[in-house]
């Protein structure tokens, strides 16, 4: 039986019950009484700062009051009217940087109202019911193509369907959900929540999903334009940045997003191999998700190596503390130089860095870490051959997702602006849908 100390990359480092416990809900759901107590802390602020801080502008004081008065389903409708993926956002939003940071009780006591958990309580309640809470408007006869079944695409498709349009979503992978399904830590989406949420969302009707349809292969923007009244591109970021370190090709070096994707789709996590000494290079949410899950699978030592200071990591403070509480070491001000190993990786050499005159430079001092698995999490890039204008490596958009080409909109991570958050993608999909609707129905 392998243990945490077994050398190399091995499955089954921890017993099944330990793995199951490790990958349970990061934050358990609130029960009815806990929700009532948490809801009562809301001050029902005037022009509430939490609403301003929410990319989807959910009327947070109203939904919390609806929970407090014993109507969680009404609360859920308040949430879902603004954010149809309110269930997932309740689980993955960095609330500590958004609504809960803005909460006046954070100002007053350093202890905000638990908006994220309350949102989950409301959305879980309504999703446990049969049926779908929204109905479609009368058919418009318009047909719209949405490319990509991630948060932006799903959000756009749902709003369009609600407005009476017929939507086809074209998805390259074998399964819809995008990063919700493939890209976030498993303990944030337990019991197959991402897939269940997509099924629930499709309950609106009028949305067809075609999987295995990749832009540039099976489909093209021109082709979609010819067959549809409008096209919405929500194709995410398909590429992963490369390290500029020698030895990147040695076995045992992989992309963090691929590791997370495989982990999310694994039927049995005890069969998923993980290194004894894991090093994750990067400083964002993906780095944290890969590192923490490596630890939870039983890796003996896991290190996040980031080239700048900890305060500059794009992973939220909450995520950094989560990683450290799970036993992940955060090593800062180091950049990879070379990776060594004969058949497989055995160690990685870093150079220490310093910021001189605002520029990051190597100091010449080196550190060597033992490593039998290395994950790259240094950012994703837009790859896609699209006949629309691109700026700073993303599809250029103005206003509610308008591209340079009439009839084509874009949103989510592939579009310029935004901040690569699920909640932002949902907002962009929704707003593009409203603009598509206004454009198609204009004059009526």
């Amino acid at each position, binding site marked *: 039986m392998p243990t945490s100390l077994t050398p190399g990359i091995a499955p089954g480092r921890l017993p099944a019950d330990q793995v199951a416990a490790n990958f349970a809900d990061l934050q358990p759901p609130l029960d009815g009484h806990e929700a009532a*107590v948490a809801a*009562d802390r809301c*001050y029902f*602020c*005037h*022009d509430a700062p939490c609403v301003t801080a929410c990319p989807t502008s959910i009327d947070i004081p109203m939904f919390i009051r609806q929970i407090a008065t014993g109507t969680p389903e009404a609360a859920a409708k308040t949430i879902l009217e603004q954010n149809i993926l309110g269930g997932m956002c309740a689980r993955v939003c960095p609330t500590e940087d958004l609504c809960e940071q803005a909460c*006046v009780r954070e*100002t*007053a006591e350093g202890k905000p109202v638990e908006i994220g958990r309350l949102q989950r309580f409301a959305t879980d309640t309504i999703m446990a019911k049969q049926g779908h809470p929204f109905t479609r408007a009368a058919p418009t006869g318009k047909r719209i193509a949405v490319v990509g079944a991630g948060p932006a695409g799903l959000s756009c498709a749902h709003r369009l369907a609600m407005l009476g349009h017929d939507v086809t979503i074209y998805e390259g992978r074998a399964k819809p959900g995008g990063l919700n399904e493939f890209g976030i830590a498993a303990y944030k989406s337990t019991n197959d929540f991402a897939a269940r949420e997509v099924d629930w969302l499709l309950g609106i009707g009028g949305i067809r999903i075609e999987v295995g349809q990749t832009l540039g292969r099976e489909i093209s923007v021109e082709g979609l334009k010819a067959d549809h009244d409008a096209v919405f591109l929500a194709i995410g970021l398909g590429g992963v940045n490369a390290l500029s370190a020698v030895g990147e090709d040695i076995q045992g070096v992989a992309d963090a997003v691929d590791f997370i994707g495989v982990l999310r789709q694994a039927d049995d996590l005890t069969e998923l191999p993980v290194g004894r000494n894991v090093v994750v290079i990067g400083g964002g949410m993906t780095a944290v998700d890969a590192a923490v899950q490596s630890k939870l699978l039983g890796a003996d030592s896991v290190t996040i190596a980031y080239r700048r200071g900890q305060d500059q990591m794009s992973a939220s403070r909450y995520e950094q503390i989560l990683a450290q509480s799970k036993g992940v070491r955060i090593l800062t001000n180091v950049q990879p130089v070379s990776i060594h190993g004969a058949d497989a990786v055995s160690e990685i050499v870093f150079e220490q860095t310093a910021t001189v005159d605002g520029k990051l430079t190597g100091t010449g001092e080196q550190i060597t870490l033992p490593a039998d698995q290395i994950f790259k999490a240094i950012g994703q890039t837009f790859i896609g051959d699209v006949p629309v204008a691109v700026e700073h490596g993303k599809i250029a958009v103005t206003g509610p997702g308008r591209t340079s080409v009439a009839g084509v909109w874009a949103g989510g991570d592939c579009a310029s602006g935004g901040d690569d958050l699920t909640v932002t993608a949902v907002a962009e999909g929704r707003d593009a849908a409203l603009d598509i609707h206004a454009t198609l129905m204009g004059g009526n």
Partner: protein
Amino acid sequence: MADLTTTFLGITSPNPFWLASAPPTDKEYNVRRAFEAGWGGVVWKTLGSEGPPIVNVNGPRYGVVYGADRRVLGINNIELITDRDLYTNLEEITRVKKDYPDRAMIVSLMVPCEEEAWKAILPLVEETGADGIELNFGCPHGMAERGMGSAVGQVPEYITMVTAWCKQYYSKPVIVKLTPNITDIRNPARAAFKGNADAVSLINTINSITSVNLDAMSPEPMIDGKGTHGGYCGPAVKPIAMNMVAEIARDPETRGKPISGIGGVTTWRDAAEFMALGAGNVQVCTAAMTYGFRIVQEMISGLSDWMDQKGYQRTSDFIGKAVPNVTDWQYLNLNYVAKAKIDQDACIKCGRCYAACEDTSHQAISMSADRVFTVMDDECVACNLCVDVCPVQDCITMVPMQPGQVDPRTGKVVQKEYANWTTHPNNPGAVAAE
């Protein structure tokens, strides 16, 4: 350390905290536990006439009103007077009083409005050695339908009549417990003292329906699909009770007469407030029913600490001290002008003051784009609503203007002299200022 020993009607107890006549004082077992916990006295749950015992419902007898986190704000009840045998109660009272001679033991009574009924029970109570009696003219449910309880308390003539019988056939102090279910509490209080009562105690419970079961379409507590009004008590009734105590304390006809304060006393502070308004002691029920008897220790330590801070040696030093400051609206100083002031450092920018003022008051608070809330003195009437709704203590305060300053709202100079409605030029019935 302050001395909490309190003498009320010549009855001395180690502290002013008595348990009111209610379920907690129904029998020896509970009362012994109460005395062990430190309560200064008890009013034994109301005894009725000799005969077949009272019958209670066999379904729920309490309803509740909750605040946040199921905090009990008010309870109502439809329990009747003791449903135990009269002689069992009398024997237990005798035993307990003998074992706790330093504690006050008052016996609550409710028998029909017939002289013979009172003449029969009073000697039996006298034999127990209890320190006094309390006449239950207050319970608004059940017994009132049989012409007792609040049915008596609502007719001043009956109060005087029964009180006089008790004074005639009983040698120790007689306290008359008043019902709040009347329009002017001063009339029953005057009636009690007219019958030579030694004291009044108030309030008894308030007629109430605490909630409606919206599935069964019945009031709660629900007995087989139906409910009835019950007597409401607990923190929710305290403001009503304190006003009634104050009205009696300042009524020229009853001023200075002993009052035992009842109604939502939950903490030492509640007790101090009742006593400042003229109550010689307080009686407690709902707080004990919610938290158990141990709460009296907080009341003892809290009152004692406060008295030490204020330099009060004994409870009589502050009893009634707020009574002279309870006045009629017409005597309030109309020359007193205050303005709300927001402490920007303490403000957490929730905007509740703004919403309250803008939507429901005087549009006297401005809000900037970056959520700075500022009082506009030229609009502020000092209504205090912003202070009341602000979640941060002392963030908004009412600052009095000084004489000689110009009130920007009225353009008038603030006057130093006191002037009230009775002399105001807008008052058609104004009397000339002396």
